[in-house]
């Protein structure tokens, strides 16, 4: 914090100053969001300091809390990439939830189709590939509509969410329905052999590794390859990129495919490690929370890992807020909204903080 106020910040090299600013502003925004959220809790009749304490304890207080947090962070890392990757090309894709559902659907259909005929590792691989392809094609559709028909990708990807959920509901009510499972309309269960197991010594499933690897690959792809460079160039100036001969259409399709496949993989992780069968529980807001993660991490896949863990912790604390403070479960959603708004507001402060002014 001291850096922001000290006039010496302006003495640092420009690159450094911008980097410090890029870390400092989101932190300040998070603090402001915490203060506003505290005021909100106080209005609702809860002690803000006690609420902060509960969130911290339920999210990062003990090893078991950390495990809850990381289990939730895994799908968030993957769904965030669905917004973060296309964002580098200047596209605002919010079809994360739909791609997750379609990925989960593809994974379940694959697992039920293959059954126990193949070794579990191969079945899991097949599920993952099916989810990657299905989720990828789903979002690529939004990218293709954007490129070939000029359809706004934000709206089309959002409509695709509802269509994906309707498709899943239709299938679990009809062809895929397990008549012996009465709690709610669900598909048959994935054979236990093929479940995605836990990392030894913990309750955390292997999906966390999927998420981490996907974020690292995405970072390398965007920052360290010519493909990523082309995508970023097209994102900052489409016309210049076209003049330079970059295949903007193919880039759009490829980046949308990659983003969608990450969210699809999140669906596979959720059905293979958590839900074990397909039903409405798969629609649990990981997609929409992923949008928040992508924006807060400024579409940087490595920052996504950190932000996903932070938000995973907040999601993990939803239960305790209800039990200990009498706050409804939507409190977590309100907090997410406040954080998102504060982060966006902080964007307008670039180059305006004392010590960071330009010129």
């Amino acid at each position, binding site marked *: 914090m001291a850096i922001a106020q000290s006039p010496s910040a302006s003495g640092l090299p420009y690159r450094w100053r911008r980097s410090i600013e890029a870390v400092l502003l989101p932190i300040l925004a998070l603090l402001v969001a915490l203060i506003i959220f505290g005021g909100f809790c106080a209005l*609702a009749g809860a002690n803000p300091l006690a609420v902060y304490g509960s969130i911290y304890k339920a999210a990062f207080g003990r090893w078991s809390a950390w495990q809850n947090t990381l289990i939730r962070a895994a799908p968030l890392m993957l769904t965030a990439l669905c917004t973060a990757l296309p964002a580098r090309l200047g596209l*605002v894709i*919010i079809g994360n939830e739909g791609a997750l559902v379609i990925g989960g659907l593809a994974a379940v259909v694959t697992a039920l189709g293959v059954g126990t005929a193949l070794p579990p590792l191969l079945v899991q691989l097949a599920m993952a590939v099916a989810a990657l392809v299905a989720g990828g094609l789903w979002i690529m559709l939004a990218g293709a*509509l954007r*490129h*070939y*028909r*000029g*359809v*706004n990708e*934000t*709206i*089309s990807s*959002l*409509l*695709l969410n*509802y*269509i994906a959920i*309707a*498709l899943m*509901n*239709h299938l679990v*009510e*009809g062809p895929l329905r397990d008549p012996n499972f009465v709690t709610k309309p669900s598909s048959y269960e994935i054979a236990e052999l093929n479940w995605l197991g836990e990392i030894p010594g913990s309750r955390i499933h292997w999906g966390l590794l999927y998420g981490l690897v996907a974020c690292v690959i995405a970072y390398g792809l965007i920052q360290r390859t010519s493909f990523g460079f082309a995508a970023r160039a097209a994102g900052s100036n489409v016309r210049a990129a076209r003049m330079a001969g970059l295949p903007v259409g193919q880039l759009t399709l490829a980046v949308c495919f990659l983003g969608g496949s990450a969210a699809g993989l999140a669906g596979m992780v959720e059905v293979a490690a958590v839900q074990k069968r397909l039903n409405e529980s798969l629609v649990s807001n990981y997609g*929409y929370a992923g*949008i*928040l993660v992508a*924006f807060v991490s400024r579409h940087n896949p490595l920052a996504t890992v950190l932000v996903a863990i932070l938000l995973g912790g907040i999601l993990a604390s939803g239960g305790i807020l209800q039990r200990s403070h009498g*706050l*409804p*479960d*939507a*409190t*977590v*959603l*309100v*907090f*997410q*909204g*406040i954080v*998102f*708004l504060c982060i*966006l*507001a902080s*964007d*307008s402060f*670039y180059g305006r903080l004392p010590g960071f002014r330009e010129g």
Partner: protein
Amino acid sequence: MAAEALGWWGVPLGIIAGTLRGSAPFLFVSLGECITEKSGKINLGLEGTLLMGAMSAYAVSYLAQGWLGPVWSPWLGVLAAGLSGTLLGLIHGWLAQQPRVNDVAVGIAMIIFGSGLAFFLGKPFIQPQAPPLPTFEWGSWSQLPQMRAALRVSPLFLLGVAIAPLLQWFFRATRWGLQIRAVGDSPQAARAMGISVFKVRLASIVAGSFLAGIGGACLSLYYPGVWTERISSGQGLMAVALVIFARWNPIQCLWASLLFGGAQAIGPAFQSVGIDSYYYLFNAAPYILTLLIMILTCSPQRTLAGSPGALGQDD
């Protein structure tokens, strides 16, 4: 008995009934989005506004019934819905106009914030029954209960139908309407004329959110007439597509809303005659319809006729 005699005629009747019932929220939200977009800004957050409107209308109608009686308390609820929309609109209108801030991202944040707030504050009102808005019983001549239900028209719907041409006139013939269009088409020119772009856009966004809030009241106080967390299923977002389809023309917003309300009624209408194996797919009809309309009407080469010049651009 009459119901069984109706047979397959139940389907078109059900769709007409659903159109009259279900198009009111579309109408208000799309007119609100129309005002907003005419000024050159997009508000995706109207989904959150719709939910807040639905919740506040229901809560106020419930809480005020002892004090105002069941006839007037829903109207106070409608006002509360508009006011809650106004508040969310102020946040959106201010934030979306800050430098380097993307209005689409603000919209997504406002969806999360608005729906979170609505679920948070609305938790205690999920169980109790609030007095709904009175309706006009235009079907009382008929023996058929379906016909009566179909022609039970909400005054809010009629209000929306009246606002559409009024808004058309407002944009075409009034000083304020001209200012909004000028700001939406060319902020630079508007600034040169001495118009405050910030104020005009803020006012347009707030007015649009006010209408969207009332759209929420249609959901909770008329049809389906309850408050649940699933009461809005993307109507606030479809409104954005609907306005594009209507080419930013308030009268065409009315026709488009009727079309979307009808599409929404297909699933329940078929279910009412016993066909429910494709229930979920029929329920996806409005979304598929929106997507198809956008595919057919958009073009990568040119901007759409009627589109405000500065829409979606940083100034």
